[in-house]
């Protein structure tokens, strides 16, 4: 009898992270990148959703809750639930808070344009929030902490110069699945982690309804495509539906413009972005 040792079953790459290490790295990042440029404070928009809740937890730990201003920015159609969930975070952390109704700002434009479609209205709301956050950052002598995660940055599920506008982006390299994992470890209220993610732009809207797939599903695919450098055929061989794979790849590619600064037309020997290269942290 030959004793056969069978091959170890190849495990599907997974997205789990060491949450203690992630927390240390991200808290250190916020502290370093805010304080080294002479600031002590952070401001962020607190929607009641998981991404901004986690960002608020990280910022509060990095800078102290008294140095974090969580701004609630409801529109007239925003849900009471979102408002209440934001309050849970504020109460738990003891961060500073302020509420600014963006309705007059957004509607100031929306009401002038009779046929503005829902997407344009949503973008106007998102950019209205950006205006408020940057204004508050000046009053609070703070930098704006971004709340976008890796999944939405890759999918382009954000508004250019709206929710994507920020000084630093602590959770931009965490997939939504990982945001959930880290949120759980940091004590974000379960009710926020477990609810369906929504941009809260109209009643009943959910991210996953709009996108047409779940975050859990797309995160596993994005992880293979981006982090593990799988080609589309390898993803399909790993069990993903071919149409889904191609749809996601096309979406990621189509939204590249949202992930880079606008290209500058090169004329001189030395052009910003091409051959004039310094980090943001230059001299600090």
């Amino acid at each position, binding site marked *: 009898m030959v004793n056969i040792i069978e091959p170890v079953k190849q495990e599907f790459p*997974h997205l*789990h*992270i*060491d949450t203690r*290490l*992630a927390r*240390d*790295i991200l808290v*250190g*990042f916020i502290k*370093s*990148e805010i304080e080294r440029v002479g600031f002590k404070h952070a401001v962020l928009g607190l929607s009641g959703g998981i991404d901004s809740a986690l960002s608020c937890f990280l910022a509060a730990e990095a800078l102290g809750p008294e140095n974090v201003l969580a701004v609630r920015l409801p529109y007239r159609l925003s849900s009471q639930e979102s408002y209440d969930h934001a309050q849970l975070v504020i109460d738990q952390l003891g961060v500073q808070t302020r509420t600014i109704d963006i309705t007059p700002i957004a509607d100031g434009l929306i009401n002038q344009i009779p046929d503005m479609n829902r997407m344009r209205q949503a973008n106007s709301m998102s950019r209205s929030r950006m205006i408020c956050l940057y204004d508050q950052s000046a009053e609070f002598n703070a930098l704006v902490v971004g709340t976008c995660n890796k999944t939405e940055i890759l999918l382009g599920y954000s508004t250019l110069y709206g929710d994507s506008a920020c000084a630093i*982006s602590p959770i931009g*390299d965490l997939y939504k699945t990982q945001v959930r994992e880290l949120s759980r470890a940091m004590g974000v209220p379960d009710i926020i982690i477990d609810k369906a993610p929504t941009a809260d732009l109209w009643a009943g809207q959910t991210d996953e309804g709009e996108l047409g797939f779940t975050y859990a599903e797309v995160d596993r695919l994005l992880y293979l495509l981006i982090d593990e450098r799988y080609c589309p055929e390898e993803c399909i061989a790993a069990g993903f539906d071919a149409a889904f794979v191609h749809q996601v790849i096309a979406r990621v590619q189509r939204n590249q413009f949202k992930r880079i600064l606008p290209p500058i037309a090169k004329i001189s020997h030395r052009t910003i972005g091409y051959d*004039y*290269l*310094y*980090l*943001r*942290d*230059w*001299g*600090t």
Partner: protein
Amino acid sequence: MQLRVAMAQINTKLGGVVDNLDKHLEYIDAAIDQKSDVVVFPELSLTGYVLQDLAPTVAVQPQKPTSSFSQLITASQSIDIMFGFVEEDQRNRFFISSAYASKGKIIHIHRKVYLPTYGLFDEGRFFASGDTIRAFDTAYGRVGMLICEDFWHASPPYLLWLDGADVLFLASASPGRGLTDDGEIETSRWVDRINKGYASLFTSFVVHANRVGYEDGLHFWGGASAYDPNGNTIVRAPSTGESLVIADLDLNQLHRTRARLPLLRDERIGLVERTLRRITNNEKPGKDG
């Protein structure tokens, strides 16, 4: 013979040479207080790491030392110092270099040979690569220096070993990448694994100083470490926070380990040389391999 090594796990200011010098002097004083024989600073410790277009403006020609450079050399009258800087040669090429200063003199400079220019790295765009790997003599024995990507390749540590180095001093500014769920950033685990491997394969001491802190979105994972000729870990520091990490190297361990395990004695350098020549010349395998 005991050698007390201090690894300066520091953060640096990007392009802030004067501030970085102050930190060097502070850590050198602390290392002297701890009765250390040598203090090892990370890669580009005088300048910061992602220099890009700052590189030419912080460069030093060792023949025409700046004030910061001279102060470090002067400080080496009390303790041996390995530090990192941007070196400009006489024909104005820029290198990522580490200097070893002892008794008020620079006794060796290593220019980084392997410049990572892939993934997040872009060193080959801004720097020239060194073309020499050489061990050198100190008061306590023959040693060698390598910088980060140099020891991600197997040949530089191997060459230093053959050239007589019994202690490998490794300097890094290594950004962490690859977070999984097993307790350590993948880069850190990888470097621990290969350094332990070098200590084991070359029956030598390995001392590694890596920086901490952030530059833009990059974080540097520290983890200063030292390994003995048996491949055992002498010390491994935490991954965050500035520290002066002290390790005692019992140099007599070289005798004991190599008496048990004569890998150095038995290494067939001639075979390696012949084989490399054959591979380089693209010759067909001969009867001796």
